[in-house]
């Protein structure tokens, strides 16, 4: 099983670096980071706490955009190019297909978080004199958010008929979870509590304050597993529905 997951992963990596996707994702992330982080921080921020928070809030946006773009192709392109017919008819399970692709998404997320993004935490650490733990916990938060977004994107890609619809589905889910919590105060206590627990922003913000909140880790990991599970179920249903 592990071997077949790795074969799917290797194939995804090969295609990613053979196409425009790698420069688009890495270059685009670097560009947006520069736009969001440098302009905001160097113009307005005075303390390292402020600079750190604004940096990681910027990363929050860029990692969501990057991972949504990477994931939008993950399954819909296999369907549209007919290669899903290959994957469905060779000795490999739907779970292995999904896990192989997820491993690839996590790899890209790792490269973005600890490679492309790392330039800015280094500045935070060296220029703003932010403590190392603050920089590390913020980066871990970005990584969790990235793999969560990728799993949502895979789910969108399993449902969509083309890349744009897939992207819209995943953006809709992530944006709903991002925005809805801000309006939780409008609801009664029980609903408010549920909305607050589903609020991406409140789970993420803890990481950029130098802690690794357990609820945040559980939220992102359970959310990731849930969407991976749903993706496997969508793939299984395709065999029945045709």
């Amino acid at each position, binding site marked *: 099983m592990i*071997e*077949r997951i790795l*074969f*799917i992963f*290797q*194939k995804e990596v*090969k*295609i990613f670096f*053979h*196409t425009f996707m790698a420069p688009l994702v890495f270059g685009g992330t670097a560009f947006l980071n520069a736009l969001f982080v440098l302009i905001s921080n160097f113009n307005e921020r005075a303390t390292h706490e402020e600079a750190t928070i604004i940096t990681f809030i910027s990363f929050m946006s860029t990692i969501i955009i990057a991972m949504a773009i990477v994931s939008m192709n993950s399954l819909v392109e296999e369907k549209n*190019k*007919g*290669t*899903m*017919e*290959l*994957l*469905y*008819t*060779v*000795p*490999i*399970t739907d779970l292995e297909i999904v896990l192989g692709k997820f491993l690839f998404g996590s790899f890209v997320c790792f490269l973005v978080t600890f490679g492309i993004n790392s330039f800015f935490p280094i500045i935070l650490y060296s220029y703003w004199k932010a403590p190392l733990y603050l920089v590390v916990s913020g980066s871990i938060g970005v990584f969790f958010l990235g793999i969560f977004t990728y799993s949502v994107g895979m789910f969108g890609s399993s449902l969509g008929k083309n890349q744009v619809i897939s992207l819209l589905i995943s953006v809709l889910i992530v944006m709903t979870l991002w925005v809805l919590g801000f309006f939780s105060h409008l609801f009664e206590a029980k609903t408010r509590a549920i909305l607050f627990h589903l609020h991406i922003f409140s789970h993420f913000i803890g990481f950029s304050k130098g802690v690794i909140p357990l609820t945040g880790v559980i939220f992102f990991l359970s959310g990731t597993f849930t969407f991976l599970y749903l993706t496997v179920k969508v793939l299984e249903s395709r*065999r*029945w*529905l*045709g």
Partner: protein
Amino acid sequence: MIEVKNLTKYYGEKLAVNKLNFSLRDGEIVGLLGLNGSGKTTTIRMLTGFLVPSEGEVLVDGISNFQNPLEAKKKIGYLPESPPLYEDLTVWDYLEFVAKIKGVSKEDRGSQITQALDKTNLKEVQKELIGSLSLGYRKRVGIAQALLGNPKIVIMDEPISGLDPEQILEMRKLIASLSGQHTVLISSHILSELYKTCDRFLMIHQGNLKYDYSKQKLEQELVQFSSLLVSLGGKSKEEIISYLNQILESKIEIETVEQDGNTYHFSLRSENETILRNRILDTFRFNGLELYSLHKKEVTLEQIFLSNVRN
């Protein structure tokens, strides 16, 4: 090798394939005939495990492809109508990936890929990106991937669609070369192409298996449909038809009459074609008719196919 029992598929309320029963024996090349939308691709997709049947089962070498899909799939190589290719990989990288997920061991991988490249004449393009290849090459890459893992059964859905005449000849040779080593199932609606390559023919219409013919049985059918094309002149059309009907004792069927100046073209069918041919010659000699041509009409499988479908 493959045993299909009561295979049925519904898409929602629509019945696509209805209780198919047939089996494929070791080493034979079988053609799956059917019009577009007749259920060929759905049938093939259920055989390969791409689709789960609504009812019935498929046994591949005794293994159910629903109960134990991973084992069953190891025995099948599949080329869909549109070859399932990653355009951003080179031919070699793609075949290596397929060999890996088919479970070909590391030691055998290189030799199996080389064999598949040799068989499909792809050696000269092995380092090229698949996206830059022509359709003929892409189909060959599709066949090469189907042969990896040395499957006992090779299933091809419309392997010759979209190919030019030269590529069709190459593809036919390639399919013929698989005979004996693999059990092959080919679907097509270009029936004359299947006739040249297959030992047995299954015809599907509206999801039902209409007939299961061996090549000999099909040849008998061809005789029934054979006819003579004769071009005559020297008399009026009515007179010629009258001679034909009288002298040949109305035992012939005049299928078509076309006029080209003073020449009339008839398509004649009879139970005994030899007697018909001799009598035509005698009739013309003694009645002052001018014979311009007489030849046997090529019978197409399409005729047999459509006749069976209509019946």
